[in-house]
């Protein structure tokens, strides 16, 4: 009998085309997702070398980072550089025969939302995209990670990637999540425990009862931020929830293919006795709703805590904390719940799915967003938006005072018109709180959709359990 393998080992082994003596492998890629920002030079490179895309049918393209999220975008994109990038993607997709969801297609949305939504993402696959949050797709038990522009070109031309294998890391979350605690709180708490370099060089497999208990949406939120923990990718073994989510999606297998695929997917789990290079166990009962206070995703604390002081830290982190508190305009000792906010952003590839919007609607139904607060909901895709409208969620959000936007990356990053002004403070369901990430001088507090909804109602960071 062969030695026990982890889920990562199994997926890796199934995709090795060739291996050099030093362990460098040529890895076959099943899906390549492409967006407008990191792909233009890659297509240009193909054109200059006269090379075709090797497997256009395994490639899909969508504009998301640059697109405005106001309805008037049907008339075109004002910003010239953004418009040119989006037009270039459309032209490249057409020229190379790649499926493309244009700005006015209801299927358009954030690349990591539409991959699963359209059934492009499936268990056991290798998936790449010129974007670090490709880790999201690991929720389906797919090996998914971000790549650079020269690698985008490499995959387009060869459908392979030159890679060395990472190490295996297991993160087990035991027990049941308390009320008011969500996937976002788990993923942020893990980063808080390990640091942003904690997963470096590893592929994380998330397991345990609390992970099994998550919906597919929750698992996507979890894996999405594997990258903030420094890992190359995150993985959750597929189960009945995975199969149920995929069944009937446009690009999911059907008929006898479905049966064959399902039989294969059922072999995708870590064998008993499989070896991990690192293991971490968290007790779900001890996870609270959390919020970040600094400018690194590891600067995270339960909402009931107080802002720490630089002296609470050691070494280089001490200076970093001093700098980040100054940037954030926060004083040590202040209760997190006393921090007032100007803006609430609900969206992004971390939390822009239907379940996230349902959660927000449940909390704000019949209530009003705090006076003077700017609160926006940006669905992750046109189809999420449509479904929310059909379910009456959009109405609830609008009557509570939220702006109801078109799909895109929006205020997750300052690359389109949705940005924070200098000094503005935002409760955000996105994934990065770096300086300037949401706009020059903007201040970001990362939290779950439920916590963002609570903050929208009170105008300050708020414990959703107390509402």
């Amino acid at each position, binding site marked *: 009998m062969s030695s026990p393998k982890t889920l990562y080992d199994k997926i890796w082994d199934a995709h090795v*085309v*060739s291996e050099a003596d030093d362990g460098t492998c*040529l890895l*076959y890629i*099943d899906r390549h997702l492409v967006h407008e920002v990191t792909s*233009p*030079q890659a297509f*240009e*490179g193909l054109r*200059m*070398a006269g*090379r075709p895309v090797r497997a256009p049918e*395994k490639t899909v393209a969508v504009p998301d980072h640059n697109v405005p999220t106001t309805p008037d975008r049907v008339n075109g994109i004002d910003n010239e*550089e953004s418009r*040119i*990038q989006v037009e*270039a993607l459309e032209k490249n997709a057409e020229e190379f025969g790649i499926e493309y969801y244009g700005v006015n297609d209801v299927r358009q949305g954030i690349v990591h939302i539409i991959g699963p939504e359209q059934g492009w993402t*499936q268990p*056991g*696959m290798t998936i790449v995209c010129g974007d670090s949050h490709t880790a999201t797709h690991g929720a389906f038990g797919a090996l998914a990670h971000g790549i650079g*522009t*020269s690698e985008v*070109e*490499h995959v387009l*031309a*060869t*459908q*392979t990637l*030159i890679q060395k294998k990472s190490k295996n890391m297991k993160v087990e979350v035991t027990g049941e999540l308390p009320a008011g605690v969500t996937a976002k709180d788990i993923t942020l708490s893990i980063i808080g425990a390990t640091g942003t370099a904690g997963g470096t060089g590893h592929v994380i497999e998330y397991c345990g009862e609390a992970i099994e208990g998550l919906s597919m949406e929750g698992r996507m939120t979890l894996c999405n931020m594997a990258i903030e923990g420094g890992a190359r990718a995150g993985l959750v073994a597929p189960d009945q929830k995975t199969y149920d989510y995929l069944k009937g999606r446009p690009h999911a*297998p059907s008929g006898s*293919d*479905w049966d*064959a*695929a399902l039989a*294969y997917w059922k072999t995708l789990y870590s064998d008993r006795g499989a070896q991990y290079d690192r293991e971490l166990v968290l007790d779900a009962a001890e996870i609270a709703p959390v919020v970040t206070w600094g400018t690194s995703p590891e600067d995270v604390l339960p909402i009931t805590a107080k802002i720490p002081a630089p002296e609470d830290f050691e070494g280089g982190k001490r200076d970093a904390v001093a700098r980040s508190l100054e940037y954030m305009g926060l004083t040590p000792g202040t209760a997190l719940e006393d921090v007032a906010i100007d803006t609430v952003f609900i969206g992004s590839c971390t939390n822009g799915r239907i379940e996230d919007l349902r959660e927000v609607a449940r909390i704000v139904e019949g209530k009003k967003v705090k006076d003077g607060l700017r609160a926006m909901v940006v669905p992750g895709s046109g189809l999420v938006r449509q479904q929310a409208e059909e379910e009456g969620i959009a109405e609830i959000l609008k009557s509570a005072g939220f702006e109801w936007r078109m799909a895109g990356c929006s205020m997750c990053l300052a690359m389109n018109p949705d940005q924070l002004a200098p000094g503005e403070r935002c409760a955000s369901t996105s994934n990065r709180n770096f300086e300037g990430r949401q706009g020059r001088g903007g201040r970001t507090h990362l939290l779950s959709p439920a916590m963002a909804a609570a903050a929208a109602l009170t105008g300050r960071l708020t414990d959703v359990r107390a509402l």
Partner: protein
Amino acid sequence: MDKFTTLTGVAAPMPLINVDTDMIIPKQFLKTIKRSGLGKNLFDEMRYDDDGNEIPDFVLNKPQYRNAQILVAGENFGCGSSREHAPWALLDFGIRCVIAPSFADIFFNNCFKNGILPIVLPQEEVDKLMADAERGANAVLTVDLENQTIQGPDGGEIAFEVDAFKKECLLNGLDDIGLTLQKVDQIDAFEAQYAKQAPWL
């Protein structure tokens, strides 16, 4: 990537040290969607005045160097950011070879990925070539990668070192993609067997 075998061309002298990637291609040109077309902005801030007019004194604006294919430069050429736009801009202008006493590491590697040969020579040798280059269009250099030699305008020969693997890639015009495409049979075979195993993909 174009092959690099032998190159005979005019060498432009640039005796500056620490030429950084921001000088080679300033950051306002990084928003482009292309890697071609950067040649006109190569050394933009040294080459044009604030109104966009050419500065006649700048070496690449002088008639005898407008078609230069070789750059002879001072030490630590290409320092600064990792932008691949720097070799892209050189290449687009027509420069295929840079000769200097030393290079910044990332830039050095980026050159090979883009079909540009960076040659490291001792300062005295660079000085000699710099003097040749000062003589303008009458002083062509011939760079022979196979034999690892540079022939000066007066027949003198200078030998240079180059990593064997990188040399191989340049001689055959192989970038990472080119190298992987040499294994196309293996990829084909993998794909065929994989399609049987997982026909739904």
